[in-house]
């Protein structure tokens, strides 16, 4: 297998503090309908959005994308990302057709080594979702491992 070049440890740690542009996101009814159907559940009552939206709403609302997050961590390929954890805090139910304000960035980026001595980079992204009047509706933390030369 050809060894791929990997970013330096400094290049990774310097990602800490990176901020996304921020922005807004509104979940339309059609989007909530399709998302909820994917989970196997019935649509929630009263225009509530299924919390599964807490994956892409913060990412897109903050003005970034899964592809850009992969690129920031210099992912070797789309196949080289492993999930460590998702942490979703919900302070108020999300609702359809409400314009949420989203901020987010990278809160931690570090080089690590697993038990087999293989290097990977652990990058943590954190987003906050505000309802109108600046009420904090949700906070999400995504922690991914950017594996290096493991595939």
């Amino acid at each position, binding site marked *: 297998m050809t060894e791929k070049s990997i970013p330096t440890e400094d290049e990774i740690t310097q990602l800490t503090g990176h901020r996304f542009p921020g922005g807004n996101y509104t979940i339309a009814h059609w989007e909530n309908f399709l998302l909820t*159907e*994917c989970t196997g*559940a019935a649509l929630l009552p009263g225009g*509530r959005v299924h*919390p599964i939206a807490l994956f892409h709403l913060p990412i897109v609302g903050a003005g970034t*994308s*899964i592809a850009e997050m992969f690129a920031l961590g210099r992912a070797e390929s789309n*196949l080289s990302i492993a999930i460590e954890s*998702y942490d979703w805090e919900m302070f108020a*139910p999300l609702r359809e057709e409400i314009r949420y304000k989203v901020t987010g960035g990278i809160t931690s980026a570090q080089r690590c080594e697993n038990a087999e001595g293989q290097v990977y980079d652990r990058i943590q992204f954190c987003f906050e979702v505000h309802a109108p009047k600046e009420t904090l509706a949700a906070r999400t933390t995504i922690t991914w491992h950017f594996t290096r030369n493991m595939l």
Partner: protein
Amino acid sequence: MSFAVGDAAPEWVMAAVSAERMRTMAAILRDPNPLHWDRNAVDSLPLGLGKRAINQGPLGLSYMINMLHAWTGPDSVRRIVMRFPQVVLDGERVVARGEITLLREDNGVPLADCRIWLEHAERGILLEGTAAVILPL
């Protein structure tokens, strides 16, 4: 309705994880990872998974949320933390389960901390984590 430490949440069953739903999710999420929509990409990895798409992490997590919603109501989930020790594959039957580990109050709101997990009959625990839910009065 009364609750006690050790009480189990009613299980929630996904009878067959659907590759079609993964594709819908990938489109909505604009997720470029082919593991969720190209079975050949999964087959090409040195993981021995064969030609089966890998379920998106948030979809597996959503099965836990469905279990909690069915148990304590659609506004009950305060926090969910999920880890992903094994992948979930298309076609698999998986069961979301949970149990109360602590009962507490936050500003007068009754909460239950729970251990939650997603189980496969042969492969064991695929996802695991914790949740905090508001208890119905």
